[in-house]
């Protein structure tokens, strides 16, 4: 493999690893915030226990999210020095402000976790609010840099020299709002569905006390309501994102849909493989006119096809599949959450075991949706690092040794994925919810989030 491919592989793997923890790091605090609020409104101790246990899981996840985020941040400079030279001159501000958000999150996370017993109830809610705010702001600010890579503004590049820099224009690039909203809502959605998965799994276990079932049902309901609302919002916003692509990155939309010829009444292809030889999608289902309608709210909208562009500047055609997986998962999640809510609260029937099994899959599905979405957005921009400004091959490092580092990092990521899962399992097995639910047993120091010896 050549250097550019290796650099992309190394960075892509690191991102794919980090994004799992980063997404949960944005999504879980919101759920904790909701649980804390519910506790103060309903005075129901179950919510307090939920908040406490989710926070413990979150603290473990953060232990991997923070260093892996550090890796991704520093690795950008190591692997794409040409890119960072432009970033530093044009769009350094969001990176910088992201650190403030990150610090805010870290400070209040420690305060919420380690000083919980010394805080007034109001200050507890304030701290967890700042944790959630810091996490969400970090996500928006990093997404800002990503949005700028897709729709770069605020500078001119002539012969590799940056001039006419306008940092404000760079920060508020046209795709910022849709992209940031999409990232935030999908992260909240994922946090909620991971909670749904866990609760559904616990409810499937036989021989639970009524109290435990009550406790896990609270968790399931809260997750379903938040997850359902956010999955719907994510889908609507995804539609706005597609229209943004139509305006600003037509070749990405064309590759996502496997559209080769520019046309009005363009069809929407679902599944299948885009074939450059025949210029069509093979083996997929076509909905006539739907793509034109999605892109411009009218069947007459002219959608640009890939043939408008030289082939060496096409995005890879497999992004069609990534795009489909993301969209289908989004639809399935909307169906699952609303289906379960209607079943339970409109039809007033208990969820059947197969229904719970389906809900168990929602957390993993969300994460797959997040991964495919990010890979779609980043590889869909190829061969550009900064769209129509800088090619990835001009941004990547020219140093060797990448193969060795790639193997090393992938090895560490695999080990840490297993270890983190094991530590989470081990911890919650040793500290089951039943212990905390039983009022006869005093809650010991080491059972909660207080983790020092």
């Amino acid at each position, binding site marked *: 493999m050549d250097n550019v491919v290796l650099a992309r592989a190394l960075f892509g793997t690191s991102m794919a690893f980090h994004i799992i923890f980063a997404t949960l790091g944005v999504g879980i605090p919101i759920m904790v915030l909701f649980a804390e609020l519910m506790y103060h409104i309903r005075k129901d101790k179950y919510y307090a226990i939920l908040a406490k246990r989710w926070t413990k899981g979150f603290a*473990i996840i*953060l*232990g*991997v999210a*923070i*260093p892996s*985020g*550090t*890796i991704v*941040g*520093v*690795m950008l*400079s*190591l*692997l794409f*020095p*040409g890119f*960072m*030279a432009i970033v*530093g*001159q*044009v769009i*350094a*501000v969001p*990176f*910088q*402000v*992201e*650190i*403030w958000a*990150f*610090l*805010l999150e*870290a*400070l209040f996370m*420690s*305060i919420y*976790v*380690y*000083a919980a017993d010394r805080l007034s109830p109001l200050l507890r809610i304030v701290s967890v609010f*700042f944790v959630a705010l810091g996490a969400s702001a970090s996500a928006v600010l990093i997404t800002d840099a990503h949005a700028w890579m897709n729709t770069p503004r605020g500078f001119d590049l002539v012969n590799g020299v940056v001039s006419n*820099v*306008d*940092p404000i224009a760079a920060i508020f690039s046209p795709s910022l709002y849709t992209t940031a909203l999409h990232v935030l809502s999908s992260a909240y959605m994922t946090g909620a569905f991971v909670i749904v998965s866990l609760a559904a799994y616990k409810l499937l276990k036989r021989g639970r006390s009524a109290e435990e079932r009550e406790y896990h049902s609270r968790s399931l309901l809260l997750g379903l309501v938040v997850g359902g609302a956010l999955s719907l919002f994510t889908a609507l916003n995804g539609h706005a994102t597609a229209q943004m692509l139509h305006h600003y990155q037509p070749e990405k939309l064309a590759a996502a849909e496997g559209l080769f010829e520019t046309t009005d009444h363009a069809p929407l292809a679902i599944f299948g493989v885009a074939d450059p030889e025949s210029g069509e999608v093979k083996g997929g289902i076509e909905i006539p006119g739907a793509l034109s309608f999605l892109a411009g709210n009218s069947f007459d909208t002219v959608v640009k096809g890939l043939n408008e562009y030289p082939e060496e500047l096409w995005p890879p055609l497999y992004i069609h599949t990534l795009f489909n997986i993301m969209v289908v998962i989004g639809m399935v999640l909307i169906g699952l959450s609303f289906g379960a809510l209607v079943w339970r609260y409109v039809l007033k029937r208990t969820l059947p075991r197969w229904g719970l099994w389906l809900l168990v899959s929602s957390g993993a599905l969300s994460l797959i949706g997040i991964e495919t979405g990010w890979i779609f957005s980043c590889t869909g921009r190829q061969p550009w690092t900064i769209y129509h400004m800088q090619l990835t091959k001009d941004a990547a*490092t020219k*140093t060797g*040794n*990448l193969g060795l*580092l790639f193997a*090393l*990092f992938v090895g*560490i990521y695999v080990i*840490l994925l297993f*270890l*983190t899962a094991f*530590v989470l399992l*081990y911890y919650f097995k040793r500290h089951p919810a039943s212990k905390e639910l039983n009022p006869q047993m005093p809650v010991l120091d080491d059972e909660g989030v207080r*983790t*020092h*010896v």
Partner: protein
Amino acid sequence: MSEPTLAIMLVWLLLFVYSILGSIDFGAGFWGMVFGRSDATNAGALANRFLSPTWEVTNTFLVLVVVALVGFFPKAVAMLGTALLLPVSLVLILLLIRSSFMVYAYSSKRYGKELNVVSGVTGLLIPGLLVAVLPISLGGFIDIVDGVPSLHFGQLLASRTLWTHLGFGLSTELYLAALFLADYSNESGDNGAYRLYRKAAIWLGPFTLFFAVITTFGMVPEAYWIVEAIERNSLWFIFSILAFVFGYTALLWGRPDGGPGVPRVAFTAIIVQYAFASIGYGLSHLPYIIYPYLTVEEGFTNPSTFRALLVAYVIGLLILGPAFYLFWKLFLKDKRYLRQE
């Protein structure tokens, strides 16, 4: 003052703050591991009590240094990024292992000690490796061929200057952490732990000074320009040594209550010592960021980006100031946190 000068001062200040915080953080992890294995003392638990709420904040400062460098001196990052791919990647791997194993250790009582060994040892190595960036910036190890900077890694490994820098990084880390924990245990009213950390600090102090001197005079020929510059700025280093002597002896002073040493004075004086030395070293390093390829002027970012960044710094300080105050009050001052069993 010119804008590039202001920018390099800011970066240098952040680097200084991180080097202190990072030394205490990684050093405390190591001491927590060493004393955590013994049931006779509470010193290990005390180190962990300090680490639990603070390590995330410290880690964030590392990213802050990198991001500040990207924003203020993007060309330096492009050059250093290429040259330092291998050593910095190793630091990143160690950092990932260190943090995750520390959190694993907190979450598992049964395997806590074993997991702590992994985080303690990896943490010990990180500051030493980070300090290795200094000799690289001084010249002699980077070549630029066809515009691509490359690092002579083997030559670096074989050079004496790398090892003296490593020794300096290691001894500083352990010394600063021991001093800080001496003060922290004194504040917590834990006399047994205090005596242990004070003793460690008394042992380590002279080592740091020894390594500082042999590091300075053990530079490779290409880096000899900085030795001359250090001699020109010798006043700062004399102040630094005076602060060392003052702080070190403060560990031996008697107190009104009969206990040995005044750790608060000792720790403060040692921070002043490192501050003086950093100012002197920073001044000597000018005008180069990477000798002889890049000066501060050449590496400087775009002026409009620079001004936008300054605004971001002011707003950030205004928001985070109160948060830091609350944090400090809860974890470094509140007797209820410090004195718990």
